[in-house]
């Protein structure tokens, strides 16, 4: 019924993003998380207790490594030293999946802007992103999952919509898709699109992992702007979109992310458990 060829080795269950405040609880006792995801850039230092903790936990949980700094959309290409650092980390950890974002963070002069900045969806940007993804997959020795971004502005110049752009990247590079359902919803609202229509246009057979998270809502002179701050429980419409997504993709690893106002671990695990409920519905329906 579902095309599972593109699945990663992660279990089709709900995992959580591992954040520093929760490390002591994970080290003290096993926690009911089916798998973990880290931000790769938080573990690129030569040593120290955080890296030590991750290496201890790695044996007990399936792991996804989520890069936030490679800057796949950089016109100036990728940073060879950063690729080498990531390769070293990934060879040590042997994660079940690795991912990056469809965005740019490094300017042509090498300045790192520490945010996921939007690309114009032009043929030029497509060629650049495709070349960067191919180089990254080669240098890292692994297939990348590329995540759809939250965006707050769009460019007039556009040869593609975002779903078409991602479909082309998947087709040209063989990369997979990390479908962030919250990002999809945030961007759709911010640009006045229909989330379900965007979902239907994405290359869903390439989805290897799904993200969910909370967002903030701010009032503006023209209406509401949604901010992808990962600072609250998942919003109702995003849960509904997750359910719709899983009906289309079938069982898939789902990750709960929480990065600002990080709550106690049980709160985070409860959100993951709720996602697990949606996964059980799908498994029940297909089995």
């Amino acid at each position, binding site marked *: 019924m579902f095309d599972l060829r593109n699945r990663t080795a992660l279990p089709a269950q709900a995992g959580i993003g591992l954040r520093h405040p929760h490390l002591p609880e994970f080290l003290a006792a096993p926690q009911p998380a089916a798998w973990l995801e880290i931000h790769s850039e938080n573990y690129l230092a030569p040593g120290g*207790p955080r890296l030590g903790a991750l290496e201890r936990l790695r044996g007990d949980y399936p792991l996804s490594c989520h890069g936030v700094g490679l800057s796949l959309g950089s016109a100036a290409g990728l940073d060879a030293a950063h690729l080498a650092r990531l390769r070293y980390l990934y060879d040590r950890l042997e994660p079940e999946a690795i991912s990056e974002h469809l965005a740019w963070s490094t300017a042509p002069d090498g300045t790192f802007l520490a945010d996921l900045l939007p690309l114009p969806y032009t043929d030029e940007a497509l060629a650049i992103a495709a070349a960067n993804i191919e180089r990254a997959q080669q240098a890292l020795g692994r297939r990348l999952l590329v995540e759809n971004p939250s965006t707050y502005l769009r460019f007039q110049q556009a040869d593609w919509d975002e779903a078409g752009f991602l479909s082309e990247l998947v087709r040209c590079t063989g990369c997979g898709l990390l479908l962030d359902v919250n990002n999809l919803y945030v961007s759709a609202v911010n640009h006045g699109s229909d989330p379900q229509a965007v979902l239907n246009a994405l290359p869903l057979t390439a989805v290897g992992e799904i993200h969910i998270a909370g967002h903030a809502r701010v009032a503006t002179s023209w209406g509401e702007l949604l901010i992808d701050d990962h600072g609250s429980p998942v919003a109702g419409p995003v849960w509904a979109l997750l359910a719709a997504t899983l009906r289309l993709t079938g069982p898939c690893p789902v990750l709960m992310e929480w990065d600002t106002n990080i709550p106690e671990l049980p709160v985070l695990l409860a959100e993951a458990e709720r996602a697990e409920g949606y996964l059980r519905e799908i498994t029940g329906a297909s089995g």
Partner: protein
Amino acid sequence: MHLAELQTRMQRMLLSGGGPDPALLALLADTPEQHERRLAVYRNNVRHALLSVLEAAFPVVEQLVGVECFTATALTFIAEHPPHRPVLYAYGVDFPGFLTEFQPLVELPWLADVARLEWARNEALFAAEAEPLAPDQLASIPADKLAGLQLQLHPATQLLESSWPVHAIWAAHQPGGGPLEAVDLQQAETVMVWRQAGTVRQRLLTPGEFALLAACVKQSPLAEAVEAAIQQEPAFDLRIVLARWLNEDVLERPIMTLLTSQTCGGSSP
């Protein structure tokens, strides 16, 4: 406009906070009255991400000058010295030097050295792993080889020499620390920061300890290093100091082959 130019213009607009860039704004979709609000999300994200890194690395500097002043100072630093690597544990290495030159804070001449101490703690936290030197390893070195021995500091061990009481100022800003008013601001200090069992620690060094460790950093043989220590501190006792350092894990175990060859050399006829 090519992507490279778009990214350069957007970088300028996000970091410098200068006036609007008409060429960039002309590329944006949506109506002009929405542009500033939408761009502001990205500007806030960039500033907040980098500001958080500096706040985490320099918490005592932030307490000393207050949140508002720290934020303004850090934002000036971020605009003038943005990161050039996508690895933020290393961002902030230039902040102490920036504070030395930053005119609005010249009346706090010890502030930059407090920042250096906090950066040393950051370095110690993320330094490479290495086996600490153990007492039996040191004991296995034959007596006639000791004078030429080069002690190695553990990669996490950092030394700091300051004209100001940076350790006392730092300690006054920890939970349960004494009042800052009790600190004698005329007191120069030498401090060691190191990592033990995953925890960053720091303490004052005696003049002899500092001289010996500084000599070790310069790869001086032990005999010369001890001479330097005694010059600074006539009562310096190597055995007591070494025992303390071994207990604290501040030295690194030498490379095995070196130790083995020394041991073999000592036992051969």
